[in-house]
Structure formats: C-alpha cells, structure tokens
C-alpha cells in the first residue's frame, strides 16, 4: 500500500512563504481551482489557501528560537473527516492514500471541517465547497512533465529543500529514511488520526571528537607493540613511526 505524504523539515524552513504562493498559483489554475480571494485589495482580504506558514517563538528571551511551521492537510491514514461526510464527497484514495474532495458531490455542510482537529479544510466562499491540499494530484501523475517535475508544487518551490515528498510506506524512500533517522513526528498524535505528513524537529549541529579519533588506536601495524608508542606530540603517521 502506498501512502504519499510530505515530510517537512522544521530545521531548515526559513518561513519564506514560497510554498504558500506556489501552492496557490498551481492550484488556482489546476483541477482544484479556482481558489478565489474575496476583497483581495481591501481592508479585510480573505481567500482559500491549501497551505499556510505560521511562526512560533519557542523559549524565553534571550534564549528563543523562531520556528516557522508550514501547515496543510496531513492526509491522515485514519482520516476523521472522511466517515462523517454525508455525501461521500470526501474520500481517501486506496491507491496512494491521498484524501480528496469531490467538488461535484460536496454540499458545503462544513461537517468535515468540524471533524478535522488540524483545521486543514477550508470552505471556498465562491464555490461553496470544501477545499484542501490535494498533494497536487493533478501534477504528480502528469506524464507530460519531466520526472523531476512530478512533485507537489510546494516541494518544487522550497528554496531550502525543507519539504520532502514520497511514499512513507516504502521503508527505502527518502521520506521514510528522513522520518526514521531525523526523528520525524506526527502532529497531535493523541487523537489517533495517524497523519501521513510528518515533521522533522529542530536539530543542533554539533561535532564531538573523541580522543581515540585523534590518535589511531586500532592501527594494525601497531598492535604487536614491538616499538615504543610515539608520544602525543610526535608525528603519529603509521609510515613515520612504525615502518
């Protein structure tokens, strides 16, 4: 079973909003569109977005970190928004695990948005149907694009490669390796929704050099201890001291 998902690296996201604008640009023109804005140049603009980048401050001044947090539909493996839909307009695709809305069936009752703890769904004010991230389903299977372009628009746009895309059920995929090796975690695990999208935490980059790494302890030419061990300030190259 395939489960496509995004893995978002909070360690490298700089909050530039490029994923927000590229998402809106692609999807307003794609099969999910239009994503119309109301009052775009007025005092109180509003509109439909599939993806937002929020900013949080963690810690107390002066020891604070600014965390930019991209937020979109997490394509839960057990999506609570799907069973509550009275028309069957919300569904999860068996073949790749993407949660989608059929805009021709949606009656705009907003019940699915109540059932999503993440607030991932938005009612489009103009079309009056529920909209959400499609993982660019109209892009990732488009064979007229080059292989490299068949990725969600936000992934392509990210300048710091903070967004990875792939199948989290394939243990060898880049996203699975990232989750496994960089401590990837889901949001609000307490609700048992099993979000497919994962986030990679902030990491401090440190290099710890142990003493035995400065002096080669396991030098096979030295193991017989026939010659005296060289002092620390003497050259330690194997060919100089024990040849």
């Amino acid at each position: 079973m395939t489960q496509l998902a995004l893995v978002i690296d909070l360690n490298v996201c700089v909050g530039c909003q490029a994923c927000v604008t590229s998402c809106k640009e692609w999807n307003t023109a794609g099969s999910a569109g239009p994503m119309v804005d109301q009052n775009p140049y007025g005092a109180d603009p509003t509109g439909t977005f599939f993806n937002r980048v929020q900013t949080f401050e963690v810690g107390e001044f002066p020891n604070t970190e600014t965390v930019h947090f991209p937020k979109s539909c997490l394509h839960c493996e057990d999506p609570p928004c799907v069973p509550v839909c009275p028309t069957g307009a919300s569904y999860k695709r068996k073949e790749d695990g993407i949660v989608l809305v059929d805009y021709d069936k949606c009656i705009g009752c907003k019940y699915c948005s109540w059932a999503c703890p993440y607030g991932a769904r938005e009612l489009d004010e103009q079309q009056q149907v529920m909209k959400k991230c499609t993982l660019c389903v109209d892009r990732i299977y488009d064979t007229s694009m080059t292989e490299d372009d068949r990725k969600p628009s936000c992934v392509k746009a990210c300048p710091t490669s903070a967004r990875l895309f792939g199948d989290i059920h394939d243990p060898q995929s880049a996203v699975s390796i990232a989750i496994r090796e960089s401590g990837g975690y889901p949001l609000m695990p307490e609700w048992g929704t099993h979000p497919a999208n994962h986030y990679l935490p902030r990491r401090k980059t440190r290099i710890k050099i142990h003493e035995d790494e400065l002096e080669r302890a396991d030098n096979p030419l030295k193991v017989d201890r026939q010659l005296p061990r060289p002092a620390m300030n003497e050259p330690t190259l194997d060919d100089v001291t024990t040849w």
Partner: protein
Amino acid sequence: MHPAFSVILLTTLIGAAQGLFLALFTAQSYAAFKLLPQPDAHAFYGQGSLLALVLLVAGLGASFFHLGHPERAWRSAAMWRTSWLSREVIVLPAFMGVVFLYGLAHWLNWHPVLTTLPGELPVDPTAILGVAGTLFAFALFICTAMIYACLKFLSEWHSPLTVINYILLGGASGFTLAAAFASVTAPELVSFLAGWAAIITLLGWIGRSASLYRNARLKPKSSLQTAIGIKHPRIVQKTQGFMGGSFNTREFFHGQPVAVLRAVKWFFVLAVFPLPLLLLLSGMQGRTGLLVAAFAVQYAGLLAERWFFFAQANHPQNLYYQSIA
C-alpha cells in the same frame, strides 16, 4: 465553534416537534388504557400532528441555509453507514412521513380495528403509526445529538450527556407545547401534559447542569506543544500566516466576549428550566396564556441554550490561530 442560526433553529424546532409528537402519542396511549379521558381526536391528535409537521418543515427549511449547495442536499443520504448526519437526513423525512400519516388517520377519524390486544384493547392504524413515530422520534434525537457527540475532538460535545440532553430538552419543549395546545383543543388533558412537561423539564435541568458541570472541568487533550510537536513549556504564536480572516478564523470562533457567553448561559439556565416550571405549574388548570408563555419562554431559552452549546465547544484547530502579525 461559531453558532450558525440555521442549525440552532433546526435542532430546536425539530426537537420541539419530536417532543410534541411523543406527547400526543403518550396521551393517546394513556387514553387507550382508559387512564385518561378520550379527547377530540380530530382536533387534538389531528391538528397537533399538523403543528408538529409545521415545526419539522420549518426546521428542515432552516437547515438548508446551512448548506453551500442546497440543491445537492439529496446526495447527503448516501453515507448512512458511517455518517450520523446522513442518518439524520434519512430519519427526519421518515419521521415527517409518519407524523403526516398519523395526523391524517386521526384527521379523517380512520380507526378500523386491525387486531385486539389481550384485555380487549383495540389496535387501530393510529396506534401502529404512533409506535412507529415514537421509534423514529427517538432515532431522530439520537441521530441529531450523535452528529455532535461523535466528534471526539470537541470534548464538550463528546459525551453521552449530549444525547441525553437533546432528548430531554426536545421532550420538555414538546410537552410544554402540547400542554399549551391542549388548553385550546383538549382541556381535559392539560394537567396530565403540563405535569409531564414539568417532570421532563426538571430532568432536563439535571442533565444540562451535569453537562455544564462536566464541561467547566474539562482539560484540553491537545496543546500548542502537541499541535506543532515541540516539547517546550513556553511557545507563543507570532503569526498565523495571514493578516485577514480565513475560514479557520470564522467557523471555529464565536467572536463574543466572555461576558456575553456568561450572560447567555445564565439566561438559558433561567429561561429553559425554572421559569417554564413556574408557568407550567401555575397554568396547570388550563390557563392558556400561562402555558403559551411557558412554551415561548422555554423555546427562547432553548435558542440561547443551543447558541451556548456551539459557542462553548472549543475546537483544537484554534490552537493554530491565536495571533495575527
């Protein structure tokens, strides 16, 4: 949550209609067992069913204003296997149909004896329709309440008390309405119906107080820490990603100061329970004015109760929308 007036009207109107139907059939059952005098069937049951039907149609009409695409509403019967909303969409018209047939049978005085129960009790079509209607009325209460109670993220709603209170509050307003209606059409039933209305109102008072008590002590399961997955005691949102509003900031916030919330709570606690109780008890002898006032006060209180029911529910998605910059 943002209280939508369409849903407030839907749930209160159909709740009163279900209660009214239950009151009509309760009276008919008591009368069948000769525990109550037989009222004028045409006027009391027939017109009473019509009144219930009017409330049901009004509630159904109000619900359409909640939909973005009302013309596609027929599709919402599709997912009855998983969705309580879909089940409500099926049970509501079914209940309306049974209420219509029940009222029609009484209206036309159609009482052929189909069979007799032990003790020479005749069973006519209205008895069978009445039993069916009772089952549908309770099924509809459960469907309506479960729409809210099944959402585990909204812990204020995710409780058996939600279902109990929908049944009790709908029942109370329906029986109160039945008492007021009987004071015009069947005066001999008024004290019986007003008595039951008072008992159900009292039970509703207990049930709703229990849920207010429970909700005041809820500890949210989600926090900003679990919402963004950062384990630090001090996290402050600096921006939610946009400066104008969005669906997320409109649909999930009631937008009223705490004082309004508190005032609405006290209004409904007074208007749904003690005031109608006083009016019911003083109008028990068949004083129409007092009984109509009891229903009007209780219904106004229920509108406030339902508003508060929505406003009090705090959605976990609100954690992501705390700051604009």
